[in-house]
Structure formats: structure tokens, C-alpha cells
């Protein structure tokens, strides 16, 4: 986990005392999350599983009958196979974002959970990493189920699709990391609504349901700056088999998201609970 090691080196060099960052025990935080999920909210979790499947059935199969095929890198693919990888990236994103925003907000502002954790030998990086990995797992769970549905419906067109699994883990990690970082700076429910305000248009417009080329040049640049577009492109290339070295740019985008998110989350938790 080189990103994490980097964060420790970077932030922890001068601080070994009250604000010491890392005890190497983020699994205790994940253990807590697993027990909490098991006893209280596993039903809520399941609901997120079906959302992308419903989109796939209604748009991919229903609308797909009208649309026919779409060109990806010169290759004509059925419409359902075009949007399925995008919905897969969205599933990873949504799972990660649910856990790292609303759940984290509640824990910081109301349950004072992290205050209790940080009175033990845990450091803020243990808490940040544990919570983010947990959110990642949720994103991964959604993504893997969706990938199975795609396989059953014959929408994975290439053996490269196997790599879609680590790709969605990366995407979920990136979104969870940035989601928790942003949430840790927000103070009210109104501010939390801004997150939804960003998420919905990003979901609709990130070349999810049609190719990027329908936009004028200037709009394309904006879309290409958004994280979901990188996720959609990455996964779509893998499941349709249109693979080239350019994909590494998308990977790099998420690695940066992870590093930035972890750094700010850790910094913020320390400022909030270890003054």
C-alpha cells in the first residue's frame, strides 16, 4: 500500500506525540464497521445493489432496442454493452460515496465515534484508512454483483473484463477517500446536500449513456476533468476490449485522488479531535 506509506512519511515525520498518525491498526476500525453493519443496516446496504441493475434493464434493454449499436474505438457494440461498464463504475462510486459521506458525517457530528477511537492507541490515519477501506468494500460489493449480472447477460465482450475488478476497487477507493475528506470539512446538513447536487449531474453527463463526442469541445474538457468520466472510460475500455496504454492516465487520476483524500482526511481528523 505505497500510497499509505507515502502519506505516513509525508505527514508523520515530525509528529509522533499527541498527533501521532498511525498505529497500524486500521483493521480494528474495519472490524467495528463490519459489526455495526451486521447488526443495524445491512438492509439499507442491499438497496444500493439494485439501483444500477434497474438502470441497466430499463435503459440498456428497453432503450437499447431503439438505439441499436454505439461505436467504441471503431468497434460497434450493443447499447446495453455500452452503458453497462459505465453503470459498473457508477455502482462502485455510489457504494463508496454512501459510506464515506453521510455515514461519516453522522459519526463525526453526532455519534462522536472518532473522539472515542482517538482516545485509544489508534491514530487518525488508522481511522481514516479503516473507514475508507470499509467504504471501498461496499463499493466493491456492488460492483462485483453488477459484474456478475453483466456476465450473465453477455455484456462483457472481452477477457480484459477480468481487470475491471481491480479497476472498480481503485475507483471506489478514490471516491471513498475524497468523499470522506470533503465530509470531514462540512458542518451542516445543508452543506451535505451539495454532495448530492454534484453527484447526480456527474452521473448523468459523464459519457455514461452516450459517447463524449456528442459534446462541443469546451464541454468535453470539463467532463474529462471529472473523476467519474475517468472511471467510466477505464471500465468501458476493459469490458469492451479497447485497451491501450492511455488507460494508465485514468489509473493515475485515481491514485492521486486516493493520496489527496487520505492526506486531507487524516489532517482534518487530527485537527478535529487531537488539538
Amino acid at each position, binding site marked *: 500500500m505505497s500510497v499509505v506509506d507515502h502519506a505516513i512519511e509525508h505527514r508523520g515525520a515530525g509528529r509522533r*506525540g499527541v498527533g501521532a498518525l498511525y498505529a497500524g*491498526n486500521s483493521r*480494528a476500525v474495519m472490524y467495528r464497521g463490519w459489526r455495526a453493519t451486521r447488526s443495524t443496516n445491512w438492509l439499507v446496504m442491499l438497496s444500493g445493489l439494485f439501483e444500477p441493475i434497474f438502470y441497466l434493464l430499463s435503459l440498456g434493454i428497453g432503450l437499447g432496442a431503439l438505439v441499436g449499436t454505439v461505436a467504441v474505438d471503431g468497434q460497434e457494440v450493443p447499447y446495453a454493452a455500452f452503458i453497462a461498464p459505465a453503470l459498473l463504475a457508477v455502482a462502485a462510486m455510489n457504494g463508496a460515496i454512501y459510506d464515506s459521506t453521510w455515514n461519516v458525517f453522522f459519526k463525526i457530528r453526532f455519534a462522536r465515534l472518532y473522539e472515542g477511537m482517538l482516545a485509544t492507541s489508534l491514530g487518525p490515519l488508522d481511522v481514516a484508512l479503516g473507514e475508507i477501506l470499509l467504504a471501498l468494500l461496499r463499493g466493491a460489493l456492488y460492483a462485483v454483483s453488477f459484474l456478475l449480472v453483466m456476465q450473465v447477460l453477455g455484456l462483457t465482450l472481452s477477457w480484459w473484463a477480468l481487470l475491471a475488478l481491480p479497476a472498480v476497487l481503485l475507483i471506489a477507493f478514490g471516491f471513498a477517500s475524497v468523499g470522506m475528506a470533503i465530509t470531514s470539512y462540512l458542518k451542516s446538513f445543508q452543506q451535505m446536500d451539495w454532495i448530492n447536487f454534484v453527484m447526480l449531474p456527474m452521473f448523468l453527463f459523464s459519457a455514461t449513456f452516450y459517447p463524449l463526442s456528442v459534446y462541443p469541445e469546451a464541454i468535453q474538457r470539463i467532463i474529462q476533468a471529472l473523476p467519474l468520466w475517468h472511471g467510466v472510460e477505464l471500465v468501458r475500455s476493459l469490458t469492451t476490449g479497447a485497451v491501450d496504454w492511455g488507460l494508465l492516465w485514468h489509473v493515475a487520476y485515481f491514485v492521486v485522488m486516493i493520496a489527496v483524500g487520505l492526506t486531507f482526511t487524516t489532517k482534518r481528523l487530527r485537527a478535529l479531535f487531537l488539538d
Partner: protein
Amino acid sequence: MPQPVISAVDLVKRYGDVAAVDGLSFEVAAGESFGLLGPNGAGKSTTMRMIGAVSTRTGGELSILGLDPDRNGPDIRSQLGVVPQADNLDTELRVRENLLVYGRYFGLPRKVVAERADELLAFAQLEDKGDAKVDALSGGMKRRLTIARGLINDPRILLLDEPTTGLDPQARHILWDRLFRLKEQGKTLVLTTHYMDEAEQLCDRLIVVDHGRIMAEGTPAELIRRYSSREVLELRFGSDRNEEVARALEGSGDRVEVLPDRILVYTADGEAELERIVDAGLHPRTSLVRRSSLEDVFLRLTGRSLIE
């Protein structure tokens, strides 16, 4: 004297221009039960956070178990039990799970934590509540669970920030009994309180804190002896007459203190003093002779009552 487990010299914590803690010096010996007594905003909780190694001092020296919290925060925290002022139990977990999970935060093995959790549930008198939801517990039970949770790592020092604030009298007595047992087992306790009776019950020694400074230090009995008299005569003449009568009472006992609703006469013998006052032709509506308490010490030191 053996090495103290906590030693503070000129401890300071500033938030901007405000000094929440302004030069506290004290030592706590192993096995001692040490109290910080003072009104709200006196700097007690800030001091507790610095001792708990979750807040960095602005100035002065602080040593916990021989370690400096600025350098060994996690090592210190692993040997402390913390009971914060407001319960921060994990409401998404059941009662016993709260103990299991908290033990894991210290990196303790699963088996050790499971054994201790059962012992501590018994200690907190919550054996039959292990599978209950935290929200279903009463205030007193939650407090006992928080204390049990603070003991899961078998800490050398237990920090209690206003342990019985907000509890009804019966729940307070149960809690005091539990804390007294810990004291008997030789656990070092550090507690803040603004209740005098609590300090008298639980503290071997205490400091009285106001505006971030120490006003006095000693055992409860010493403080009462030094800053008050053996007995206190409380007289009520009616709110409108107190001031006027107070002038006539000047010179009675060791000292006279006029409060909005009553007059306190500090004296070694309350009954005798009352007789003299009545003989002098002053007839209070009600009178009461009681033993001196830490409340009187605080009034003497600061000119204010402790709970406003």
C-alpha cells in the same frame, strides 16, 4: 516518595488569546484518587484532555507515567482509561460489542478482550444487558458501561470527567460505589467534578481550580480546616432584610458571608452562636447548623458559589 504517575509543572493551554489552563502545577501518586474541583469553564476538561494525550499543551511540562505526551501520545493513551463528560458509546453496536470493539482499538487479542468484557460487564452490573442496545440503557447504566469500556485495556490511570453529572441520586450512589471499589483495588483515579459531595466521597486529595489557576490544594479535610470553620450557621431573615441584618451581625463567629437568599456565619460552635444572635434580639425566620463543606471552601476562595 515514589515516582508520581502524573506530574505537571506550569501547564498552560491557550486557544488564541484565551488561556483555558493558566499555569497548573500538581502531582498524582500511584494509587491515589485525585480531584480537580471547579465551576464550569474553569479549565478542568482541558486539563483532562492534556492528561489524556489528546490535546497538546501550549506551555509548561507534563509527564504521564514518566512519558511526555508530545512525544509518546499513543504509548500513554494505551495505558489510560477515559470516561468523557458526555457519553460517546457506539450506538450502532450492542452493549457487549462496545467492549469487544473498544478493546480491539488498543490492538488487544480477541480472546483477552472477550474474557475482560465478561468480567467488566459483571463489574458494571450489566451482566444481563450484554445483548441490549445502548440506547435502551438508563443514564446510570450508560455511565457504568462507559467506565467498563475505559477499563478494557486494564489502564494504570482512569480519567473521569464529571462522572455523575446529570444522574439521579440513586444512580450516583451506585456509581460512587463502583469507583470506590476501583480505588480499593489500587487503580489511580483522576476526576473532575463540580459536586462537593462527590469530591468529599472519592478524592484523597484535590485541587480547587478557577479561571485555569489553582486556588488551593489539599485533602478535603485539610481544605475545610484551612479555609473554613468547623460548623456553619445558616440564617434566613427574608431577602429584603439580609443586608441590613448582616451589618448587625458583623463580628459574629469567625466570618460572615452574605448571599442573596441567606447569611452564613462561620464558627466552631453553631448552636452557641445562634443563641448569642437570638439574645441580641435578631430573630431569623429559619436557622440551620451544619458541618462545613468544600462548597464553603470554594466560596471563601473565590467569593462565588460553585454551581451558578
